[in-house]
C-alpha cells in the first residue's frame, strides 16, 4: 500500500479551506440580513454550493481522486437534477 500516502494534503490547505468556509458562512448570514428577497435565496444557495464544493474537493479529497469517482459523482448529481427538474414540470405548471 505504497501509493495511498500520495494523497496527504498539507495541513495548511485544510486550515485555509476551513477559514474560507467560515468566511463564506459569515457572508451568507450577512447577505441574508440585507433582505434581498428572491435573489437572496439564490445567492445563499450559490454560496452553499461553493461551500459544499470546498468540502467535497478538499476535505473529501475529491480533487485527488481518480476520474472514476468524479464521474460517478457527476452521474449522481445529474440524476438528482433530472429528478428535481421533471418533478417541477408538474409542480410549476399545475393549473
Amino acid at each position, binding site marked *: *500500500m505504497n501509493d*495511498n*500516502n500520495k494523497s*496527504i*494534503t498539507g*495541513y495548511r490547505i*485544510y*486550515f485555509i*479551506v*476551513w477559514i474560507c*468556509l*467560515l468566511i463564506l*458562512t459569515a457572508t*451568507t*448570514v450577512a447577505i*441574508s440580513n440585507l*433582505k434581498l428577497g428572491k435573489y*437572496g*435565496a439564490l445567492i*445563499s*444557495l450559490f*454560496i*452553499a454550493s461553493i*461551500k*459544499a464544493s470546498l*468540502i*467535497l474537493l*478538499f*476535505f*473529501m479529497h475529491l480533487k485527488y481522486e481518480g476520474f*472514476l*469517482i468524479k464521474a*460517478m*459523482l457527476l452521474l*449522481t448529481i445529474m*440524476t*438528482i437534477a433530472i*429528478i*428535481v427538474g421533471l*418533478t*417541477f414540470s408538474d*409542480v*410549476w405548471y399545475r393549473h
Partner: protein
Amino acid sequence: MNKDNILEEKEDYEGSKMGMWLFLFTELLLFTGLFLLYSAFRSRYSDEFHTGAAELNKTMGTLNTVLLLTSSLTMALSINVIKKGQKKLSVLLQGLTVSLGLLFLVDKYFEWSEKIRHGIYPNSAELLQRGKGETIFYGLYYLMTGLHGLHVIAGIILISIMIIMTINERIHREKFVKLENAGLYWHLVDVVWVFLFPVFYLIS
C-alpha cells in the same frame, strides 16, 4: 485456519473507498427526496416559509454551522495525522470531532425544545391554527433537521468506533481506509447541513 476468513482479510483500498462513495450517493439521494419536497412546497407557500424562517433562531443555526465545519476540519486532520503515524494526536482530533458533533446536538436540542415549548411541533394545535404554509414549513423543518440529526448521531457512533480501533491499533499508518471512510461520511453530513442551513434559517 477458518476458511471463511481468507477473503475478508485482504483489503482493497480503492474498492473500499469506492464502496463508501457509492454509499454516500445513496445518502445524497435520500436527502434529495426531502429537498425536492421542500422546494415544491416552497414554491407554493413562499410567504409562509418566510415567516416561518424568520422565527428560527439564526444565531443558533450559525453556531451549528461553525461547529460542524470545524468538526470537519478536525476530522480531516485526524486522517492526515494517522498517515504520519501520530496515533495520539489522531485520537485527540477524532475525539474533538465527536465532541463538536455532540455540541451540535446539544444546540439542536435547545432549538427544538424551545419550539416545542411554544407549542410548535407536528400536528400541534398551535401550528394547525397558524395555517397550511407554516404547518408544512415546520413539518419539513422537523423532518429534515431530524433526519440530519440522526445522521449526526450515526456519525458520532461511527467515529467513536474509529477511536477505539485506533487505540487498538486496528487503524494505523498503513491501514486507515476505515478512518478515511468514516471521515467521508462525516463530511457528507456536513455537506447536507451546508444546504439545510440557508434553506431554513436564511430565507426570511
